């Protein structure tokens, strides 16, 4: 990575090559954002096809095979290719700004994370069209065993095609990206804080990022192990999950959910962090109970490890195990409830400005509460036996992940878009978008509570009219299309803001944290002078405010920032090549992939650090 001064970097910012070799955390953040948003649209399109099929009983829009691919890819896409990388885009862009740093700790590793994510996403989705290449006689070989991929349905015997291979290998690739990012951001947050930015002065979003990153580096190894065992079962004839030689399909369920439940918090905690930034800004009050909010986030992170078997109450683990996991699961409602009460107390006595960001943050509180309460009803194992694997659960986790995470992410987009682009998104379009999405999601997901309790299981491509849930399903489908319309409004808003958005200035909202002290968009080096922090809310503290130099008022000095490097991209290219080897049953592909990775790492390691 050749070093460069900030001034020379600023000049060379154009053209494809500069994006392919960028190590600037802000550009990588944007790459994450646009890629992840594209996959949000893909996953949304899959959801609309699912809803179209279920709009009426005995739907015939797609076949059973296609439907099973759609719900598998909808779940996989939304979790791994849309929501996680959307949170990553905010980690990338905002964390260095919030802690007063010029970049992340390992800028080239950061670029590597993004490229591996992009290639993993493309690899996974190539399965939609890869049939002819693999000579299987049909176009699509997309994964079709569910995002949870329960053994032994995923065994070679019951899933002979390459569908499950794409899923296993795609997830393994994406895990590399998440792990690299996890270590990078932990080191960044712990080591690159500006002087005076003590841990208990960190903005809550950065705190929740830190907790999320610890969850990622501890949870992803578990799914990696589970996937490698599955890969061995499918490729080399081992029997980890097969009873025929003493294996056990339940091993998969334990491993998957030991990863899978922390994953829920990986998806929710960043959104909670965003909400904890947005509410104080638009209430003009500091966050109520900062310490309690931070500690409850950490506690949720820890407790998330002790609840995995609540995904397995129907397995029949016995009354003792059921009781223990019911108790731990109910306990997790306590720190979650504490957060909600602290947010309400933050609003109490404030001067609330109902910007679009604020509306989405308020929507988060309202909708996440519903998801949390339905969650308590299936923390009770006997009750869960009537709920699990039905649309009731689909309703529950969409209130958590759509009403929660997606609303939180849109709050973040409206809040930070002016910082990122220098222009404000249209508030009037934003409010229409919020209204459509709020009404749309409730129409989509609220009826699902009834659909499930009236006996409709999940993951069925068709249902009979005799169940009596046809009208409720139609309502749900109408809601889904309204929601989709809301998302399209956002795309339009982003498009017109490029040229017609109001110019933001450094701080359009009156925010309390460091990112609002620098120009929008920030210069390549972020801070002309690294600020010295003496408060949790530096911009709201009079004495502190004078101490922080406003970036635009100083001339860019000779600041060294990381230059670009192509080697992260080269190294990343080797990873999907490696993954092609088990698909094509070709050893030479494995060797080629390994060679590319080794070459990339070698050149990366010996790249001159400074010119």
């Amino acid at each position: 990575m050749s070093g460069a001064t900030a001034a020379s970097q600023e000049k060379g910012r154009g053209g494809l090559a500069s994006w392919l070799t960028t190590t600037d955390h802000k550009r990588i953040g944007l790459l994450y954002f646009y890629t992840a948003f594209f996959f949000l649209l893909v996953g949304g399109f899959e959801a609309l096809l699912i809803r179209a099929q279920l709009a009426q009983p005995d739907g015939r829009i797609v076949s059973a095979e296609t439907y099973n691919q759609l719900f598998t890819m909808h779940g996989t896409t939304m979790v791994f290719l849309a929501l996680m990388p959307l949170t990553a885009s905010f980690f990338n862009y905002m964390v260095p700004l919030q802690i007063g740093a010029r970049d992340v700790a390992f800028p080239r590793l950061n670029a590597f994370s993004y490229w591996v994510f992009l290639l993993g996403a493309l690899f996974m989705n190539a399965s939609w069209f890869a049939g002819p290449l693999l000579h299987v006689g049909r176009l699509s070989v997309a994964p079709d065993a569910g995002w949870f991929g329960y053994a032994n349905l995923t065994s070679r015997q019951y899933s002979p095609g390459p569908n499950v291979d794409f899923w296993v290998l795609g997830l393994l690739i994406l895990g590399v990206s998440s792990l690299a990012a996890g270590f990078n951001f932990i080191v960044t947050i712990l080591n690159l804080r500006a002087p005076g930015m003590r841990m208990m002065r960190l903005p809550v979003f950065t705190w929740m990022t830190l907790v999320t990153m610890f969850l990622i580096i501890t949870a992803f190894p578990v799914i990696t192990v589970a996937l490698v065992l599955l890969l061995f079962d499918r490729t080399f004839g081992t029997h980890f999950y097969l009873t025929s030689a003493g294996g056990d399909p339940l091993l998969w369920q334990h491993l998957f959910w030991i990863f899978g439940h922390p994953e829920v918090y990986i998806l929710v905690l960043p959104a909670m962090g965003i909400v904890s930034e947005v509410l104080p800004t638009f209430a003009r009050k500091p966050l109520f109970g900062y310490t309690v909010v931070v500690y409850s986030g950490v506690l949720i992170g820890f407790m998330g490890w002790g609840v995995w078997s609540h995904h397995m109450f129907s397995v029949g683990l016995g009354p003792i195990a059921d009781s223990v996991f019911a108790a731990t699961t109910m306990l997790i409602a306590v720190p979650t409830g504490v957060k909600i009460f602290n947010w309400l107390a933050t609003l109490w006595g404030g001067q609330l400005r109902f910007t679009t960001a604020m509306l989405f943050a308020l929507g988060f509180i309202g909708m996440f509460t519903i998801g949390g309460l339905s969650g308590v009803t299936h923390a009770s194992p006997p009750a869960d036996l009537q709920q699990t694997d039905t649309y009731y659960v689909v309703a529950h986790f969409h209130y958590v992940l759509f009403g929660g995470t997606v609303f939180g992410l849109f709050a973040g987009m409206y809040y930070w878009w002016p910082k990122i682009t220098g222009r404000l998104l249209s508030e009037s379009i934003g409010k229409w978008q919020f209204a459509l999405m709020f009404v749309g999601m409730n129409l989509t997901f609220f009826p699902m509570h009834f659909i499930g309790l009236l006996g409709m299981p999940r993951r069925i491509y068709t249902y009979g009219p005799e169940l009596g849930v046809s009208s409720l399903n139609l309502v749900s489908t109408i809601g889904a299309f309204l929601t989709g319309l809301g998302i399209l409004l956002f795309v339009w808003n982003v498009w017109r803001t490029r040229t017609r958005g109001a110019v933001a200035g450094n701080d359009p909202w009156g925010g309390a944290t460091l990112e609002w002290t620098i120009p929008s968009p920030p210069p390549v080096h972020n801070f002309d002078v690294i600020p010295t922090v003496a408060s949790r809310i530096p911009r709201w503290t009079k004495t502190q405010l004078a101490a922080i130099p406003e970036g635009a008022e100083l001339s860019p000095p000779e600041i060294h920032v990381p230059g670009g490097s192509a080697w992260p991209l080269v190294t990343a290219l080797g990873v999907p090549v490696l993954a092609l080897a088990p698909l094509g049953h070709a050893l030479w592909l494995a060797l080629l992939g390994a060679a590319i990775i080794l070459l990339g790492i070698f050149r990366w390691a010996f790249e001159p650090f400074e010119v």
Partner: protein
Amino acid sequence: MPSHSRWLNPLLLCAAAAACGGPFPQSTFRPASDFAGAIDHLFTGIFWWAVLVFVVVEGLLLYVIVRYRQREGAPTPKPVHGHTVLEIAWTLAPALILVFIAVPTMRAIFSTQADPPAGALRVEVVGHQWWWEYRYPALGVVTANELHLPAGRPVTLELSSADVIHSFWAPRLGGKRDVIPGHVTRIVLRADSAGTFLGQCAEFCGASHANMRLRVMVESDSVFGAWVRGQLAATAPVARGSAAAQGQQAFMRYGCVGCHTMGAMSNAKLGPVLTHLGSRTTIAGGLFPNDSAHLARWIGDPPGEKPGSIMPNMHVPASDLATLIAYLQSMR
């Protein structure tokens, strides 16, 4: 039913019925066994606690939105950083509510998973892609897709799988239980009274997961006894020269005997037992009514009717199809 249910059921059913009406044959709100009743009672209690919290939290949220909206010329809000007593209060309050949920939960866990009383009727349930096999070891009966149970008697369903993971779920008779290869899981229940109860597989099990339906016929002791005797009796021999007799020939010619048990003629185990098929109300894993038209459609193209079906399309011509159907319908 427990007192709570009288409150909850009308409420929820009204909401649902307003949208679609119907008898809701798989509704969890219409418990018809001790197992389902216990769950319904537990859920009703938790539901009202959730309603209480919902009203408090959403009420507070709406209140602050209206009360503290920005007004012209209002002073900057007082910066409040926290309040220890409040923090302790709203930590303890949810914890206390959870105690009221956890205690009945633990009770229900142990009561619904208790060992069956002596003399319970034992039925082995085997999940297959995509149909159900039922074996009554004490009675010597083997049947498929339609489970017959006596009303008012304790029953143990011992669940196992022939291939992948399934989940046995007849919502009105109780919660689901997964059917896992290499494991034997269990449902213990006592059905309240006679009736037909619909259900279906609840764990994704491949292409035709949606088509893995089931029904449970709960019968009075005398009706159940008669059914058992019918299943044990030999089927009447087909009359020589009749359509059924030609169908029997076709049944062997097309290799049906290779997969299906059929009386004394075949003992194959790959597909569902067909010995008394004529006495069942449905075919193809509970997917279609058992009539000539649906039998013709089903035998005519199984993978077309039920994606992924292992039973192949045998390209049976119409003439043979008619005799096959006559034969199957005569096997009562």
